[in-house]
């Protein structure tokens, strides 16, 4: 049925009684209730005094219809007057929805354009019907039906009611692959984003059948094969048929794998003056004979562009020419370097930042107005903007400038709420049951300042801390921050005392380059040892009371990991030195060095999630001046840094009272193999097997006696662990056995940690 309103053509021209060429003396308007006659006349093309020719009348008719205000219009010339009879479209009084169980009313109201007091037209109702159907299709309900119903009211008003029959959701019941010899159905099942519907997927939408996702899955499959040497792979088909019982869809992907290739000759031919091809050949991370990998070519291209920019060729363009030799199954790549267009940035326009200040965005740019247009630096600028976390989306597009070689970079940011209120709960072996509440504003007043306040209440730990950091103080490469904190820990089971630290610190941080950064800080902390158990060791009892720590410290970090949150390759090394004694009651120099190395095992296990993490740390405390070091400053071994032992369970101890005394020297080393469990990746289960070695000794001369044990023999703990990223939070379980220990050490086999944020 045609949605256009039934326009009744004016009476045929022949019926025009007026003599041709006669002047119109007046236009009478009939049938209008709400709209004034003048308004109707103002929309018409013929005015009083014009010639009443049929064409102009027809165009007036169409103009009146175009306003959408009228359901029916008739223009009939009578003598030299023109009569216009209109029937106005009714006004919508109320819009209601019936039968919508799965989708909320205001979501539907958001889709429908008909609003109370708007003008009702059948076309608008038809448009809304389609919009509601699209909404349901997006949610996988292809069988939904929507019927708009009209209730006429007085004074030419109507109520619009959309009657909805939702139908049930179309799920994917089976996925199968045809023609895959190199990889099993199981592995490919993990590659595509669609999943077969299963009981544990009630929350996820990955098992809903969505046509657009078929195209995405084809691309994912193609790229998976490309990365593993199959240069000729074609995904010839991705079809979905409705299952016989019409409850779900069968998806079938047909793959034509082709041959597996290795890299052939890798050459660089440079057509840029003053640039030798061989000079930059080492910058290409591909070696001849390696297994072919489609993405490696892209990575090599951008690596080359980077190194060219650094060598002062910002305009050089790199395009790889790939030649395939089918018999030898070799792929030779020639990187052709040509002089790209010498374009310069005329202006960088930033839009969408209604909260964030312009300079907070502009200072992240690695290019400025007047600089050469360098795609790598523009891409890096966009990544830096995304890493800020203030925006849900950042797009940078180029548009022509005022001259041929001038370009305007238009940056469109989409801001999102950067204020977070976090509530958390959990249990850990060290702190017991705990709850924490945090308030954080990552982009305070749009100035880029990160301010947060956290409170944590646990059985054995209570903590309140507040910190403010400006990541680029005065737009400089200088992060400045202030922290204030009050921590109370119950160490009765470890060393029979409670400890309280109240203080604050001023921080400054800066980057030498992408990998090397340093932070310097001054801290002033009041520490108090109190509630010492009556039967505690005499060395603990003499530590009772408060001491003031005034300390300057620095941390130098060299970070070559591939990812800060979930590293899989590379390494990080940190050197920390604390100097206490500028005032305050204690004076010492404490140095710590720690490092972690991540070895990717994808080559052996064929899966990126296998990672070997080897880390170690060493620390020493050297008091100077006449004052001995306090227990609160010494190192403790056991718990997190030596699994298999209780916190402070391996180290100097008073064996009569079993109190741990801490030591001046600490050494720990951990080797951990992380691997995915043979369960679907959606469950978020990862396993690990580990071996920890630790050493903790060294007491002040004043702490000695028959009951004191201080041995520098190494302790070893080994075990297995599992982490589960469950819908309610992250759960860590470790089972570790103390393999090498002293008889007076305190061991702990089971460690449990559970934390959630909501």
């Amino acid at each position, binding site marked *: *049925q045609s949605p256009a*309103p*039934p326009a009744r053509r004016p009476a045929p021209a022949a019926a025009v009684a007026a003599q041709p060429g006669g002047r119109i003396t007046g236009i009478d308007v009939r049938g209008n*209730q*709400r*709209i*004034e006659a*003048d*308004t109707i006349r*103002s929309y018409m093309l013929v005015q009083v005094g014009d010639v009443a020719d049929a064409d102009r009348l027809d165009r007036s008719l169409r103009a009146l219809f175009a*306003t959408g*205000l009228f*359901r029916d219009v008739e223009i009939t010339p009578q003598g030299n007057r023109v009569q216009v009879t209109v029937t106005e479209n*009714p*006004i919508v*009084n*109320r819009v*209601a929805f019936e039968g919508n169980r799965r989708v909320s009313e205001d979501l539907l109201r958001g889709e429908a354009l008909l609003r*109370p*007091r708007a003008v*009702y037209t*059948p076309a608008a*109702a*038809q448009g809304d019907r389609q919009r509601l159907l699209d909404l349901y299709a997006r949610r996988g309900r292809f069988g939904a039906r929507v*019927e*708009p*119903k*009209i*209730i*006429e*009211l*007085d*004074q*030419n*008003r*109507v*109520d619009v*009611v959309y*009657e909805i029959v939702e139908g049930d959701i179309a799920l994917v019941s089976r996925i199968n692959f045809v023609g895959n010899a190199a990889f099993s159905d199981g592995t490919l099942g993990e590659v595509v984003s669609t999943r077969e519907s299963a009981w544990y997927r009630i929350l996820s939408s990955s098992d809903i059948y969505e046509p657009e996702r078929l195209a995405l899955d084809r691309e994912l499959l193609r790229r998976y094969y490309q990365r593993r040497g199959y240069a000729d792979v074609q995904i010839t088909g991705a079809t979905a048929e409705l299952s016989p019982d019409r409850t779900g869809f069968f998806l079938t992907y047909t793959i034509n794998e082709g041959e597996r290739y290795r890299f052939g000759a890798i050459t660089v031919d440079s057509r840029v003056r003053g640039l030798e091809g061989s000079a930059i050949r080492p910058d290409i991370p591909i070696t001849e004979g390696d297994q072919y990998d489609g993405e490696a070519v892209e990575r090599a291209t951008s690596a080359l562009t980077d190194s060219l920019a650094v060598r002062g060729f910002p305009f050089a363009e790199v395009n790889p020419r790939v030649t395939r030799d089918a018999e030898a199954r070799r792929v030779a790549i020639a990187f052709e370097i040509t002089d790209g267009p010498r374009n310069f940035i*005329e*202006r960088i326009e*930033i*839009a*969408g*930042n*209604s*909260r*964030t*200040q*312009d*300079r907070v965005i*502009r*200072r992240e740019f690695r290019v*400025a*107005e*007047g600089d050469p247009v360098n795609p790598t630096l523009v891409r890096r600028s966009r990544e830096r903007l995304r890493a800020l976390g203030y925006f849900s989306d950042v797009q940078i597009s180029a548009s022509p400038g005022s001259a041929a070689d001038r370009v305007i970079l238009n940056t469109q940011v989409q801001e999102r709420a950067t204020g977070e209120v976090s509530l958390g709960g959990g249990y850990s072996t060290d702190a017991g049951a705990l709850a924490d509440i945090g308030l954080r504003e990552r982009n305070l007043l*749009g100035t880029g300042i990160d301010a947060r306040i956290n409170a944590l209440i646990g059985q054995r730990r209570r903590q309140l801390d507040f910190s403010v950091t400006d990541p680029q103080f005065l*737009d400089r490469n200088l992060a400045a921050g202030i922290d204030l904190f009050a921590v109370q820990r119950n160490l009765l089971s470890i060393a029979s005392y409670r400890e309280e630290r109240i203080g604050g610190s001023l921080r400054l941080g800066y980057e030498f380059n992408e990998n090397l950064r340093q932070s310097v800080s001054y801290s002033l902390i009041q520490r108090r040892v109190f509630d010492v158990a009556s039967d505690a060791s005499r060395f603990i009892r003499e530590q009772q009371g408060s001491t003031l720590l005034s300390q300057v410290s620095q941390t130098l970090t060299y970070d070559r990991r591939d990812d800060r949150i979930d590293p899989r390759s590379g390494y990080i090394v940190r050197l920390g030195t604390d100097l206490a004694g500028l005032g305050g009651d204690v004076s010492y120099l404490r140095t710590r060095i720690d490092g972690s190395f991540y070895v990717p095992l994808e080559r052996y296990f064929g899966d990126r999630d296998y990672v070997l993490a080897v880390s170690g740390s060493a620390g020493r405390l050297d008091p100077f001046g006449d004052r001995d070091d306090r227990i609160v400053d010494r190192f403790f071994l056991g718990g997190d840094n030596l699994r298999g032992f209780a916190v402070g369970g391996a180290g100097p101890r008073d064996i009569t009272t079993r109190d741990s005394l801490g030591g001046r020297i600490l050494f720990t080393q951990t080797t951990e193999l992380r691997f995915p469990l043979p369960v679907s990746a959606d469950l978020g289960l990862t396993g690990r097997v580990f071996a920890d070695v630790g050493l903790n000794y060294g007491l002040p001369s004043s702490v000695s006696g028959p009951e004191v044990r201080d041995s520098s023999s190494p302790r070893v703990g080994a075990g297995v662990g599992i982490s589960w990223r469950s819908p309610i939070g992250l759960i860590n379980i470790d089972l570790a056995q103390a393999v090498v220990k002293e008889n007076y050490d305190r061991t702990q086999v089971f460690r449990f940690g559970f934390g959630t944020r909501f």
Partner: protein
Amino acid sequence: CGDSNPRPWDGTNAGRISNSTTRSSSSGTTAASEAAPEDLYAEGMRQLRAQNFATAARAFDAVEREHPYSTWATSAKLMAAYTEYQRNRYTEAIGALDRFIQLHPAHRDIAYAYYLRALSQYEQINDSERDQRQTEIAMAALQDVVSRFPDTAYARDARLKIDLARDHLAGREMHIARFYQRQGLYTAAIGRYRRVVEEFQTTNHVPEALHRLTEIYLTLGLRDEARRTAAVLGHNYPGNEWYQDTYALVGDGVSPSGERPGLLRRAVGWIF
């Protein structure tokens, strides 16, 4: 809502509207209070004067919904928009005004409708360090008022607001220019300062822009450029405090009437 017998619409005859019997109202909200439109309207005006805008808005809504054909409804639409404007609900005000303008293009208060719509855009202007698209939208709306109703009081106020909005845009350019200058990216800074001098001549940022240009030229060692820029500043803004700074900076007594580069006269021309 328990409508008993909605008329089936088979989509072909485009919802034939029969003048069926008037239906009793179905849900509570639209209990036809049967108050006369003028009483409702007067109530709305009283609430408006008493500044409780929410009740005023409801009263004007009622006039429009229950008596859509009375002339009161037209004025109620305008008053409802004004009430939304007072409650700082600018998007709703603009929506109501758009409907008013479409339905009553020849209404006596149409100039006011355009003006109130421009004001609603103007009030949403962000401060000059943030996104200025809203400023551009507001300027276009204000310009619309000036061109449609040139000799009304509304146009006079609109012209004033256009200048204020233009000053905002100039302010943004200056913020960006100062940022680049402090970073030592002089090409970028010069480009932005010159945009202020060329495209925002009527704003009061021009003296500072000229002074900043002198600062940069001296930093780069372009003494003659610095002197020429100082001369333009001196000539056009003799008493301005920025000229004192420039004079001190350039130092060697550049008299404002120094040698005039060819284009100076034209440059002076469009500054005024």
